């Protein structure tokens, strides 16, 4: 190793070699091969992309993917903002409890959480029976095997990923700025709209973008709560490869997801840099 011979801390790149080799062999090269197959199978050319972007079947899958990701992001942002705001200023005793609940739900096995929602939302499930008992509905609502179920399950999973970064942003805001707004005669609503929201804005935007990107590529919850009739992009990739053994189409769909994901992360990084430079 480089630094071992030079006595102190040398260049040190050698230490990173095992991890670099592992990622090259089992991450970079396999992903590159997969993407290559999208233009070589079944025959060289772009026909997989033409099919993917041209047919109505796939258009519906793209719509489902972006629609669900958009709705999940919107709901998550709406819930996370007041929660993060309250957590930032609550007495520590209460916020510690809520914080523990958030961490518990975040670290509970994903399948266990999704299973709970499958049971809660089924036709004879607790949610439907409660709605019936309070007289809101006569017939049980169809809440699983459709996009409603997917949306509820995904909001549940994404909430911590929105609340935690947003909490960090709100905690950094100087309370004196809001006192100043009050001294200048701003009402609570004015101070919220013109001071607090703009200051929390970068956190809301970057957290929202992260939730949106994660939702786009999500596999487990959409397959279990959405059913095969309401497929999303990640399921399409898995289905093309596993059931249909169509590596060309699978690779093309993976490429589209990869480009969208990395593109949005690039926006995120740029956005973050600007927000921090401000």
């Amino acid at each position: 190793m480089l630094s071992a011979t030079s006595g102190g801390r040398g260049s040190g790149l050698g230490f990173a070699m095992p991890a670099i080799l592992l990622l090259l062999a089992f991450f970079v090269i396999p992903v590159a091969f997969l993407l290559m197959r999208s233009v070589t199978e079944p025959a060289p050319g772009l026909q997989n992309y033409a099919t993917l972007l041209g047919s109505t079947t796939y258009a519906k899958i793209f719509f489902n993917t972006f629609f669900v990701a958009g709705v999940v992001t919107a709901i998550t942002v709406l819930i996370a903002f007041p929660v993060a705001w309250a957590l930032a200023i609550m007495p520590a005793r209460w916020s510690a409890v809520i914080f523990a609940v958030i961490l518990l739900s975040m670290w509970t096995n994903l399948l266990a959480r999704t299973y709970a929602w499958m049971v809660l939302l089924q036709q004879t499930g607790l949610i439907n029976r409660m709605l019936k008992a309070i007289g809101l509905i006569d017939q049980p609502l169809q809440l699983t095997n459709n996009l409603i179920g997917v949306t509820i399950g995904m909001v549940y999973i994404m909430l911590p990923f929105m609340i935690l970064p947003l909490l960090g942003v709100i905690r950094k805001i100087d309370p004196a700025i809001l006192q100043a707004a009050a001294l200048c005669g701003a009402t609570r609503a004015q101070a919220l709209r013109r001071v607090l929201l703009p200051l929390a804005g970068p956190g809301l935007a970057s957290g929202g973008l992260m939730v949106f990107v994660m939702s786009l590529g999500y596999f487990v919850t959409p397959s279990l709560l959405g059913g095969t009739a309401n497929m999303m992009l990640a399921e399409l990739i898995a289905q093309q490869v596993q059931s249909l053994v169509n590596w060309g189409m699978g690779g093309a769909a993976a490429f589209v997801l990869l480009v969208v994901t990395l593109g949005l992360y690039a926006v995120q990084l740029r956005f973050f840099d600007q927000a921090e430079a401000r």
Partner: protein
Amino acid sequence: MLLDFDKLGAWKWALSAICAVMALFLLLPILFIVALSFGSSRWLIFPPPGWTLKWYEELFADPRWIGAALTSAKIGVIVMVLSVVLGLLASMALVRGTFRGRAVLRAFFLTPMVLPVVIVAVALYAAFLRLGLNGTLPGFVIAHLIVALPFAIITISGALETFDPSIEDAAILCGASPWEARLRVTLPGIRHGLFSAAIFSFLISWDEVVLAIFMASPALQTLPVKVWTTLRQDLTPVIAAASTLLVALTVILMIVAALIRKGKSE
């Protein structure tokens, strides 16, 4: 004003109410599965007509569940060790190295965390079909290591950044060899980071579903794969029992992690 809880007036109650409802929303499904796992109804009627341990008996009587849990534990422990070792070496390079392009290398190490897992899963599945690694223990370990490593690197390099390198230099000045200084001064100094990285890495492997679905064979499957295939057939309460044990494990590991954090601050 808006950032002073006591001066919020009526808004204080609105915010508290939203917080309470959200906490219930997050907690309810978890409590619900725990309750169902002890309920006597096969059709998951809630509240259950009676209480029973039969789903746990069914779970422990089935060698496939036990086998899957043991496989998960074995893979999790191997991934944990490899992830901490590789993560430590990579973090040394990132934090203490002097070569150029460290920021780029760091971004490279974190990419598996950013990409949708399904892409990694499908790509590895194709590669492993050629290498004959599908359905083998090394196949599972490699796949899980790819997604666990970024978390280990973040945690360990974070700990290393806060550890003053001049302490290591002092040890060398006092006659320790560079390796001795690293092993006996730096490693104990960042042990909290190493423990956290180990817990994270194990949990990531233990809970991982998507890669495992692609790597699994009928002969070798992890616990999440067993839950997944059972879930697709029916919603039997046995899954509630298995889920409850998983929740219990999470709670234990969270407490351990909290104690480590507490130990660090003292």
